[in-house]
């Protein structure tokens, strides 16, 4: 989330604007960029065997004594009030322990919304939860049943009778545009940005494209359903959750339920897919509250339909992109503006113009986002919020401009890719998007693309190629803490509350710690997913790896000082200062004379210590303020479109990435591929069918909401520049969200190349490709 980045930037940008780069903490490159052993290796996931063997316990699988089960009732109306509530039949049903509605729910405050100033805020909505009779959106939780078994709870839910009076609801995007808000900032980036007079420049340009692009709402579909198990032990609260925000959740629950932070423990060792959807929603609050009411542990697992009804997804958008170019093909104007949904009780502004601010040079710019207020489950962060749909619009427009000019769209991009941040003028920390394009084009065989749309055929199929760029900002979040414990046997345990959502966090950080501490990978144990461990920030904005790495750097420095002190005068490294040594070969070594070496084992043994423990916080992420730091991508797609049916079948997809050092090629390749597959869904099939008449989602199931199947996913090639970023820990930038970024446009551009049809309205379903 660039929100966090911007929150920090907003406060210190002006203060440090004059500081020379070399003075910053990130100013001298991390020495591990040059000197690494485990980092960059193809290590398998440490948690792989336990997952394959079924031993890893996900939140819905934790064995708990005396467990009770909850089920939820969702409002079928969109706006209105509960007039009559009859819970008698449900309460009398077999196995039912309690029925909870706004009448008997304990009085609670509301959650602070994610972002802005409070780093521990986790709310996706700040509406009251079961506090009154008001219904704000279709799918809102209006009652819960707690029973001895899940089946009994599910059955009792069907017996609850509720009468509502419906009130007029805002459900139509097109109508609500008339009253759209223009926020002052988007994630505290200034919203309305102008450089020069873009409209005037546009009108004077030799070549102009000016079009509107539309993207539909999307829903989260992580394979693991949202699930929580809550139990009170005395005054303490234990929560088994599946969450991207372990420590912040504990803090927020403590605040909401009037507890001290240390009374709350949130455990989430494994998350079966997050993508932005595994934050705090109403179900965790309900589970915690009712667990106290029934005096027993409560497990609350959403149904798949429940995930659609009460977990927000990606907002729909309507985006205008206008680009002007001079006769030589240099951009003279870039305008990106539009509308997306953000109800006043929501947290996610879908920053679709931010990617466009970082890609291309132009003589003039204008960026502006407007928020449409609808009565809906609040939209939230969904893999590359903003960039995933923003790049669809801007990278389709670049392709349209290239076609209008009669030039190769790759050449047009190469001629306009920025050398410094185009809006702020800040230098990039490292930026090899041009190389990513060149390398990708060569591997893909871009030169085989036919310039004339619709000219390549195989039988009834028209073949096309397309490409697109992506950009996603680097972020390192403040507030990351880790604890390092060096054991007497020379092994080490690294601990922090970080989140493992399947991307390989523990594996990569263990690789990092091995190199940082001078130990073999087998000597490292990495503990995470527990709010009792030193707090690290939420996993979001592709920032967790850099954030935790920064904290390990700080802790390793502290450990070096402590071990030097402990080594004493008899040590081969006696007399050396922290800056004169490094951790290597299982101990401390002199940088100038590596033969001066003292092992951790002997230092601890001489001091009669079992272990040495240090805890430290990562430095402030000042590198983000001094440099423009962005992961970038060049995506290539080849596909075919049936001349008979309009069916689109993707044959090849290639992602060429510039994301700094790739820490583990195996886990990174999985991240990239997963993101690109999600991008195929965005391009071709995914669409939440939101019925504007009722305000209700009509396709709340995986049978009716179409993500790609195996048959829809072609061979996916991924490659990377692997050029270290000299301003980030380990030289790495985020890779979790750049994979989806750009895929929508690459597919749309390939469809145009195949057919000559420009689809500006996702998803690109076959009816849009049939002749009228």
């Amino acid at each position, binding site marked *: 989330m660039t929100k966090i980045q911007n929150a920090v930037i907003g406060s210190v940008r002006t203060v440090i604007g004059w500081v020379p780069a070399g003075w910053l903490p990130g100013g001298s490159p991390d020495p591990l960029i040059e000197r690494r052993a485990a980092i960059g290796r193809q290590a398998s996931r440490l948690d792989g065997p336990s997952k394959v063997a079924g031993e890893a316990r996900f939140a819905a699988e934790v064995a708990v004594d005396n467990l009770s089960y909850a089920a939820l009732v*969702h409002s*079928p109306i969109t706006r209105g009030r509960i007039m009559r509530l009859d819970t008698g039949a449900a309460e009398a049903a077999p196995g039912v322990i309690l029925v909870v509605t706004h009448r008997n729910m304990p009085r609670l405050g509301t959650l602070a919304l994610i972002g802005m100033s409070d780093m521990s805020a986790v709310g996706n909505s700040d509406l009251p939860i079961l506090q009154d009779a008001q219904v704000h959106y*279709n799918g809102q939780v209006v009652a819960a049943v707690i029973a001895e078994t899940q*089946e009994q709870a*599910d*059955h009792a839910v*069907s017996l609850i009778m509720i009468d509502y009076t419906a009130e007029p609801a805002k459900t139509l995007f097109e109508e609500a545009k008339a009253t759209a808000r223009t926020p002052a900032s988007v994630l505290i980036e200034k919203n309305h940005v102008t450089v020069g007079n873009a409209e005037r420049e546009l009108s004077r340009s030799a070549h102009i494209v000016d079009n509107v692009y539309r993207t539909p709402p999307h829903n989260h579909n992580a394979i693991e359903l949202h699930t929580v198990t809550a139990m009170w032990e005395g005054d303490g609260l234990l929560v088994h959750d599946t969450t991207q925000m372990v420590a912040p959740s504990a803090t927020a629950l403590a605040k909401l339920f009037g507890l001290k932070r240390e009374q709350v423990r949130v455990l989430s060792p494994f998350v079966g897919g997050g993508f932005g959807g595994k934050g705090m929603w109403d179900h965790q609050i309900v589970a915690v509250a009712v667990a106290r009411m029934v005096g027993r542990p409560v497990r609350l697992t959403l149904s798949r339909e429940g995930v659609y009804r009460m977990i927000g997804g990606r907002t729909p958008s309507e985006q205008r992109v206008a680009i002007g170019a001079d006769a030589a093909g240099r951009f003279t104007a870039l305008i990106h503006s539009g509308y997306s949904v953000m109800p006043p009780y929501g947290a996610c502004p879908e920053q679709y113009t931010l990617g466009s601010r970082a890609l291309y040079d132009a003589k003039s710019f204008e960026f502006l986002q407007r928020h449409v207020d609808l009565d809906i489950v609040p939209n939230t962060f969904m893999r590359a919020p903003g960039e995933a749909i923003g790049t669809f619009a801007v990278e389709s427009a670049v392709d349209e401009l290239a076609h209008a000019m009669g030039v190769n769209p790759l050449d047009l991009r190469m001629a306009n890719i920025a050398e410094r941040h185009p809006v702020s003028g800040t230098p990039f920390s490292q930026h090899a998007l041009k190389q990513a394009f060149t390398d990708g084009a060569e591997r893909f065989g871009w030169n085989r693309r036919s310039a004339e749309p619709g000219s390549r055929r195989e039988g*009834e199929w028209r073949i096309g190629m397309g490409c697109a760029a992506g950009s996603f900002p680097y972020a390192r979040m403040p507030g990351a803490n880790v604890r390092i414990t060096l054991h007497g046997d020379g092994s080490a345990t690294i601990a922090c509350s970080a989140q493992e959502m399947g991307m390989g966090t523990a594996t990569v950080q263990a690789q990092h710690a091995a190199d940082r501490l001078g130990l073999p990978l087998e000597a490292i144990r990495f503990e995470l997913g527990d709010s009792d461990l030193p707090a690290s920030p939420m996993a979001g904005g592709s920032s967790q790896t850099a954030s935790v790495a920064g904290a390990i750097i700080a802790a390793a420095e502290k450990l070096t000082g402590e071990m030097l002190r402990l080594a004493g005068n008899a040590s081969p490294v006696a007399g050396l200062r922290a800056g004169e040594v490094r951790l290597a070969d299982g101990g401390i070594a002199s940088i100038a004379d590596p033969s001066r070496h003292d092992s951790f084992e002997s230092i601890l043994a001489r001091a009669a210590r079992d272990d040495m423990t240090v805890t430290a916080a990562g430095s402030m992420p000042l590198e983000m303020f001094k440099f423009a730091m962005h992961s970038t991508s060049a995506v290539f797609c080849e596909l075919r479109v049936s001349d*008979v*049916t*309009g*069916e*689109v*079948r993707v044959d090849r997809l290639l992602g060429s990435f510039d994301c700094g050092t790739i820490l583990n090629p195996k886990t990174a390749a999985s991240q990239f591929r997963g993101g690109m597959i999600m991008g195929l869904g965005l391009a*071709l*099939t995914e669409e939440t*069918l939101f*019925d504007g*008449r*009722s305000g*209700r989602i*009509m*396709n709340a199931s995986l*049978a*009716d909401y*179409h993500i*790609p*199947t*195996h*048959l*829809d996913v072609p061979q996916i090639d991924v490659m990377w520049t692997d050029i270290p970023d000299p301003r980030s820990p380990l030289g790495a930038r985020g890779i979790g969200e750049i994979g989806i970024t750009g895929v929508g446009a690459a597919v749309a551009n390939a469809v145009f190349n195949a057919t000559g049809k420009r689809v500006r309205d996702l*998803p690109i*379903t*076959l*009816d849009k490709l*049939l*002749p009228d």
Partner: protein
Amino acid sequence: MNPVSYARAASVADALHMAGGQGARLLGGGTNLVDLMRKGVDTPSQLVDVTALPDGIDRAEDGGLIIGAAAGNSAVAAHPLVRSGYPMLARAILAGASAQVRNMATVGGNVMQRTRCLYFNDVAGARCNKRVPGSGCDAIGGFNRYHAILGGSDACIATHPSDMCVALAALDAQVYIAGPAGERTVPLVAFHRLPGERPDIETVLDPTEIVVAVTLPPSPFAARSAYRKVRDRASYAFALVSVAVGLTMREDRVDAISVAFGGIAPKPWRAAWIEDALRGASLSPSAIEKAFEAEFADATLLPGNGFKRGLAKRTLCAMLTELGGTAP
């Protein structure tokens, strides 16, 4: 969710005895009925498991095929007699659902399956005349991309979702029915009803009767036949349009022809107008188009499904042109 009793029928007579009561439903693979029960769309009080009933796939006396209603979809698709004599049927079955679903699903269940209309399936939030007669239809003014352009009514435009039944319709299948009064057969094309004013009554089957088999006459189309299913996603999606075509040629003219559509009507749609127009004709694009226009003259096009008319025409033209050109 409702309390429900479960019993397993050992014979057709047994099943008839148990299935006669109000609230009883026959349970095959459960790939549709169990979903409907979970969603509260259907609330039977008794399930009669009929998977122990005849599931053979055998040569009939007339040289055709008789398929027991309990035969699994996968078993039918894989059977040598089906693959050699009725390849269109094998292709249609394999175009449907997923391997797991096809392994569980039965032929009888496939014939009897319900529509996947989003509004039919949404008990809490939508009106549906099929689910609650007289309550109204939210699909007509709503999301109707998967809905009918032929054969619908003001009360209902839901489609029958089966792929298998489209091929069965083209192959002149008969549905073999047993009831308290004895046995009867009904052509598959007459088995499903159009909705009219009563979309809740979907077939001509009396509640006391059960489907025990499907029979196929010998088919002249083994050499020239095709099933094509059109959809955005390459797998696990219902047809937007599907077409089953069987053809025999005499020199350059159509001798016998059979055409059925799926995804466009409340029932598997046997295209008699098209067949009549093309029988004896040469397969020129203009002849095919003219035949198609006759069949689809009464099509009702809505904003969400209007594209299907052109899509069906293009798909049919491409299939007939290709089949007509192949050697017999």
